[in-house]
């Protein structure tokens, strides 16, 4: 009785968690991308649900098992780290190995060439310590409330440390870019002055020889 209640409650929690998040509309052949700027070794979990537009009722069908969702994740170096077709409802997970901007793209696996019907996509992306399921951990490791709370604090602090480290790397990149711009401005000014002087000298020489040939000088 106890285990049955537990299972039922867990199932309800999962169902409710998928039903409530934010949603938006996209065309059937449209591709929607989201950018997540994250440090390395960070887990990202995305929960999504796709509903197809029902022209009969003017609304969206509660569940559309026919359509699949293609999820593509690219890392900061533009390499694809996840490219899979999932069913109309589910979750995708990936862990970043390089710090930077990861692009998560979603599009349906529709075979149409131009825009078909509208799709309603429910999406929820959780990053880092928000991606950790504490109910699961409490149950598996049999932690008391205080232990669970301390565990949560430890995870949060770890994520903050990673983010600070990533910030140091970003600031270095910013500084390199600024120094490169500074160098470029300096060298290009000198180069352009040289080009101007060379062109001026060439013009004078060419015109002088031209006028001498014409016997005007």
């Amino acid at each position, binding site marked *: *009785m*106890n285990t049955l*209640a537990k299972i039922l*409650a*867990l199932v*309800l*929690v999962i169902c*409710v968690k998928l039903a*409530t*998040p*934010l*949603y*938006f*509309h996209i065309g059937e052949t449209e591709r*929607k*991308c*989201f*950018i997540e*700027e994250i440090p390395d070794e960070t887990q990202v979990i995305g929960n999504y649900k796709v509903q197809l537009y029902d022209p009969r009722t003017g609304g969206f069908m509660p569940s559309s098992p026919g359509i699949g969702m293609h999820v593509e994740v690219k890392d900061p170096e533009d390499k694809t780290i996840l490219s899979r077709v999932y069913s109309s409802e589910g979750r995708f997970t990936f862990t970043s190995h390089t710090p930077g901007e990861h692009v998560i793209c979603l599009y349906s696996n529709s075979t149409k060439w131009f825009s078909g019907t509208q799709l309603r996509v429910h999406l*929820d*992306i959780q990053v880092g310590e*928000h991606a950790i399921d*504490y*109910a699961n951990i*409490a149950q598996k490791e049999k932690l008391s*409330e*205080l232990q*669970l*709370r*301390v565990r*949560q*604090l430890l995870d*949060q*602090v770890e*994520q*903050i440390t990673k*983010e*600070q480290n990533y*910030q140091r790397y*970003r*600031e270095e990149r*910013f500084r390199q*870019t600024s120094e*490169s*711009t500074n160098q*470029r*401005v300096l060298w*290009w000014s000198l*180069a*352009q002055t040289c*080009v101007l002087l060379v*062109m*001026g000298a*060439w*013009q004078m020489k060419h*015109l002088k020889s*031209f*006028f001498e040939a*014409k016997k*005007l000088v």
Partner: protein
Amino acid sequence: MRWSARVSGAAFGAALLLGLLAALTEAVELTFELPDNAKECFFQEITKNTTSTLEFQVVTGGHYDVDVILEAPNKEVLYRKVKTQFDSHTFTATMDGVYSACFSNEFSTFSHKLVYMDFSVGDEPALPGIGEHTTVITQMESSAQEIHKSLNSVADYQTHHRLREAQGRKRAEDLNSRVLTWSICETVAVVICAIGQVLVLRNFFTERRPFTQFN
């Protein structure tokens, strides 16, 4: 024995129910690209008397501004900003239904923008099991809760810092590539002008012979 098992089962059930209710509160942060002349809307179902916050910031693009409209289920405009760079708006839902937050870049003809959005509904979900003893909270637990709140605000500040830094960094990278392009274009223009001047000048002093040949 059976009575205690039933009580613990009921307590667990109550805790999970609380967890279930708490799971109804969500916070979603998304960074998306808004093409020029486009409008993107995000919808969220909110129950009555829930405090929600919509926060946005334009990271890159154009003059770093975007139009924002927040509408209630009865199409009443709760919040509207025109050409704003960043803002945060907290509101309490007066009715059940689907609230929409729309970002518009329709005033811009060629700059697509990168917008960060955070739409959080309700309070943060409590840790499972914490909801059980709401009457007696130990000193340790309340200190831990304080630390948790502080760490939440640290993470929040970090996000804002990251967005500001991304804005500055992207602007610097853009400037860097533009300096190179402009310099090359200018050098090419100077060379073409110099050669052009010489050719035109030569043309002035060249006699045109073709017509006289036929006479």
